[in-house]
């Protein structure tokens, strides 16, 4: 059995890469993907801790996180499509209006 600490370090690395992607990329679709990467890293930490503690609560939580991520992606991509329709551009630097 690989020590759980290794999984936690890997989750921390993946989470930080997701945060870096949110900060440096200008394409909102890639910003979204970075958020998915962060959620996934948190899920990995949940499952690793669940394995240590021997209870299923963390795994059920991961299930809910996956469901909420699906909902979030649907709404977020709809927003991006709506913004693209009104502004013809989806660069995050150019999104400075509340009303199109």
């Amino acid at each position, binding site marked *: 059995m690989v020590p759980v600490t290794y999984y936690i370090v890997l989750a921390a690395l*993946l*989470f930080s890469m*997701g945060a*870096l992607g949110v900060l440096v990329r200008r394409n909102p679709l890639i910003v979204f993907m970075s958020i998915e990467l962060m959620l996934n890293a948190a899920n990995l930490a949940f499952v690793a801790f669940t394995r240590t503690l021997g209870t299923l609560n963390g795994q059920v939580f991961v299930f809910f996180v996956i469901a909420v991520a699906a*909902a979030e*992606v649907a709404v977020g991509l709809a927003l991006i499509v709506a913004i693209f329709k009104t502004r013809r551009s*989806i660069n995050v*630097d150019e999104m400075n209006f509340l009303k199109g």
Partner: protein
Amino acid sequence: MTIELGLFLVLALAAIATALGMLFSRNAVYSALFLVLNFATVAVFYLLLSAPFLAMAQITVYAGAIMVLFLFVIMLLGAEQLQPAQILPWQRPAATVLAFLLVAESVYLLVFRDAPQARVAPAEELFGGPQAIGTALFSQYLLPFEITSAVLLVAMVGAIVMTRKEKGD
């Protein structure tokens, strides 16, 4: 070095490499495909951590549904390549430094200060299988499960409302 440790190291390298590929691809389609690979490696980690049900859910929901939606939107908008417009020239180095700080902080907090118990209970048979997860979902977590269905419904309605054509157009 056991087989499991070797497998872990290879997969961890793959996960980090695909995450980096996702971050630094010029083309958004490549980013999405790298992310699919990353999700697949994380699914194998779930299998190693005796969570087979979650591994399959990860593949079907994340790699299957969510990333297909992403690819759909990328190709629909033709947003494969945006012109790189650097408005803040110092942003990239600052973000890199902050990301390294975040790694150092989280590793320190999670590993050195609050070390999880090294002892790992041997997993029972069926731990993390569909039967165990289903029993937990439909007994202890019934209310959150029902709320999840409401969340999905609201997201579906919201997505349709936001992308439909306005009457004036």
